[in-house]
C-alpha cells in the first residue's frame, strides 16, 4: 500500500469509519473486501448510497422519509386518518409499525425540543403538525416522543399548542421505562403503551 497513492483507499476507510458500529479495524476490513469485490457489486452499493440522498425526501404530510410525494402509510386508504401519532425519529415509526397494533397516521418531528442545545420549535416539523391539525380532520394526537426529560418536555409543549385547537391529546402509557428510547422497546411493550395511553 505504500506505493499506492494513499488518497483513495484512505478516504474510503475514513468514510466507513464514520458509520455507527464501525471502528478502524472494521473499516479496514470492509475497504479490503470492497477492493476485491466484483466491480458491479461495488457500483451497485455506490448507486444505492447515492439514491437514498437523491431520491428520499420527507413525506409532504407526515415528514417520514419516502421516495414518493406521500409515504406508503399516508397513501394507504385503510389507515385511520383521524388519528396521528407524533414521534421524534423515522426509526420510531418503524418500531411502532412493527408492533402491528396501530392503524392511524404518524407525524415525524425529526428531533425533540432541546433548549440547552439551541433546538427550538423552528428546528422541528411543528408548523407542519399544526397545519395538519387545523384542517379539522384529526381527532386525536398521540404523543409518542421518548419518555426522557426532553421527550416529555416536547410533548408538554405540543399539548399546550394543540389544546386550544380542540383536538384530543394523549400520551403513550408509562409502560416504557423512564429515560428509555422508543426504538429499543419491544413490540408488546409498545402495543401496551398505545393501548393504555392517557389524556394529557
Amino acid at each position: 500500500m505504500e506505493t499506492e497513492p494513499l488518497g483513495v483507499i484512505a478516504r474510503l476507510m475514513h468514510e466507513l469509519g464514520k458509520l455507527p458500529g464501525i471502528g478502524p479495524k472494521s473499516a479496514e476490513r470492509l475497504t479490503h473486501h470492497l477492493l476485491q469485490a466484483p466491480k458491479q457489486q461495488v457500483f451497485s452499493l455506490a448507486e444505492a448510497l447515492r439514491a437514498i440522498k437523491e431520491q428520499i425526501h420527507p413525506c409532504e404530510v407526515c415528514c417520514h422519509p419516502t421516495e414518493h410525494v406521500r409515504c406508503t402509510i399516508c397513501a394507504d386508504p385503510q389507515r385511520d386518518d383521524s388519528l396521528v401519532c407524533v414521534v421524534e425519529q423515522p426509526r420510531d415509526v418503524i418500531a411502532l409499525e412493527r408492533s402491528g397494533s396501530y392503524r392511524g397516521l404518524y407525524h415525524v418531528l425529526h428531533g425533540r425540543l432541546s433548549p440547552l442545545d439551541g433546538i427550538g420549535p423552528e428546528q422541528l416539523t411543528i408548523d407542519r403538525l399544526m397545519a395538519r391539525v387545523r384542517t379539522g380532520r384529526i381527532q386525536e394526537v398521540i404523543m409518542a416522543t421518548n419518555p426522557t426529560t426532553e421527550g416529555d418536555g416536547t410533548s408538554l409543549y405540543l399539548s399546550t399548542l394543540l389544546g386550544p385547537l380542540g383536538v384530543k391529546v394523549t400520551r403513550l402509557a408509562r409502560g416504557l421505562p423512564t429515560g428509555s428510547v422508543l426504538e429499543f422497546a419491544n413490540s408488546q411493550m409498545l402495543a401496551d403503551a398505545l393501548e393504555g395511553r392517557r389524556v394529557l
Partner: protein
Amino acid sequence: MERTEAIVLRTTDWSESSRIVTLWTRELGKVRALAKGGRRLKSMFDSALDLLTVCGIVLLRKSSGSLDLLTEAQVSRRFPRLRDDLGALYAGYYVAELLADWTQEYDPHPGLYDEAVATLAELGHESGLRVMRFEMVFLEELGYRPALERCAGCQGPLNEQRLAFGATTGGVLCVACQGRQREHRPLSVEAWQLLQALRGSGDEWRRTWASAVRNEVRQHLGGYVTTLRGRPPRLLPYLGG
C-alpha cells in the same frame, strides 16, 4: 475510582453505544465523562443519564488528556413536576445551563450542589422565584455577589427614593453614581427588597411578592448574568418572574 452523587446536566451522543455526559457532582464539582455502552450497561445508562436526574455514579479518573470513564449510574431521584409543568422544566434547564457553562471541572461547591437539588425538587411551585433564589446563591458561591446594601460604585449609602441597578458595575447605584455610570436601569424599592431577600439567609424570599416585582427582579438578574457572561444564557428568554 470515585463514588459520588450527581445531577445530569448534559448528554451528547459519542457513538452508537456511548455518550459523553456532563455531571454536576457534590464532591468533585463539574465532571465530563464517557459513558460507554455495551449491551449490559446501555439500559442502566439510558434510564439514569436523563437530563436533570440525580444519580449515584462511579467514576474512573483517567490521567491527563483522556476523558474520565463512567462505570456505573443508578437513578437516586427524579423530579416528576419537571415532566408536567413547562415553566418548571425550563427553570430546571436554566439551572443546568448555569452549572454546565459557568463552573470549572473538578472545582467542587457542595453547597451549590445541595441548592441545585433543593431547587429542582421545589420547581413547579413559584418556579420563577425559586430559580431566582438559586441564581443568587449561585452568583454568591462563584464570587459574583451583587452589591445591594451600599452603592456598587462608591460604597456610599443609597437613597431609597431613587434606586438603580447597574449590571456592569455589579449592583445598586447611588444617585451620584447613576450620573456617572451610563449603564443602569431604575430599581423599585420592592424589587430592591426582593433582591436582598433572595440573598438573605432566611426564608424571607418565600413570602408573596407582586408579579410586577418578580418580573422586575427577573429583568435585573437576567441583565446582570448576561453582562457577566458576555452573552445571554440560552434559557433566559424562557424564564418567568
